[in-house]
């Protein structure tokens, strides 16, 4: 009787696990995904080239039309006429990669309302405060930094993100890749 009960409970638990939504929360608290699109655009542009984080060999992976694509049928040529822009799935994948990089630290940063973005390795590396093959990409307080830190704090400064992309001097260029 007891064995049958355990078997029954075990089956129910297993079934529940199989039916669990892939979007189910598992204890990591990330910044608002809904506010990530502008941030993703900056990360894709500054970090996501094929020779940097637009490759699977990196712990932090960035997907998007200027680098690595998620769908095998897409190519990194969005600036070319007819090229396919970054997809929502790619933004989701980049979000999960970023949040999953240091999940415990990210949770602490978010719970602290972004008061300490420097706790995150990706912030320190982008600022040049930690060894980074890509060098220092921005300085604390500039538009690019504000784009990321405002997102971590819970209210993305989208205008800072726009400026951050434009500061790269080649945003909006079209032509052959």
């Amino acid at each position, binding site marked *: 009787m007891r064995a049958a009960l355990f078997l029954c409970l075990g089956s129910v638990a297993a079934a529940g696990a199989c039916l669990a939504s892939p979007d189910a929360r598992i204890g990591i608290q990330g910044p608002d995904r809904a506010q990530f699109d502008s941030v993703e655009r900056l990360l894709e542009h500054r*970090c996501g*080239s*094929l*020779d*940097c984080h*637009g*490759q*699977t*060999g990196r712990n932090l992976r960035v997907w998007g039309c*200027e680098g*690595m*694509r*998620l*769908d*095998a*049928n*897409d*190519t*990194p*040529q969005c*600036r070319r006429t007819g090229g396919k822009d970054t997809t929502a799935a790619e933004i989701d994948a980049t979000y999960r990669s970023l949040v999953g990089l240091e999940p415990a630290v990210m949770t602490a940063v978010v719970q602290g309302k972004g008061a300490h973005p420097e706790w995150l390795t990706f912030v320190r590396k982008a600022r040049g405060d930690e060894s980074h*093959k*890509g*060098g220092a990409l921005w300085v604390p307080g500039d538009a690019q930094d504000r784009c990321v830190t405002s997102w971590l704090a819970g209210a993305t400064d989208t205008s800072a993100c726009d400026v951050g992309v434009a500061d*790269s*001097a*080649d945003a909006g*260029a*079209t*032509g*052959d*890749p």
Partner: protein
Amino acid sequence: MRRFAVALLGLLSCSGDPVHDDLVRGLGPEPSGAPGPLHRAGQPCLACHGGSGPASLELSVGGTIYVQQGKTDPLEGAEVQVTDLAGRVVCSATTNAAGNFFLRRSECTMPEPAKANVLRASDGAESNMITRIGRSGSCATCHHGDTSTATSVERIYLLSAE
């Protein structure tokens, strides 16, 4: 003793960086003849010439340019300009008979990020990079193959397919 000898041999033949060593091994043996400016067209130059060996000549930028999209005819005599994001030319080199060009580390420091242009003076044909070079001086890090894929861009060419 035998294990020690094997281990020592391995140590002497490798850079100590397994990722780099795998990259070099993946390039395969020298296709023909001795290494030189015309060799290994289309391969990532800095895999061997990037300062981690095995080549002693250190480059900062290197690649191969082809005449037309989808074809493998090398482009000889074209100027390859390496620029900063504002378009200022930082260094330039001319492609050789294999379509190869290269810039020694002693003569060029590639800005990071950078861009590149290919110009053929004979007819004014030009091809300009609109995305960016993040940090790799090997064009073939990103550019290889007949067609672009989800993780790479096709070979560098001057003229689009007809």
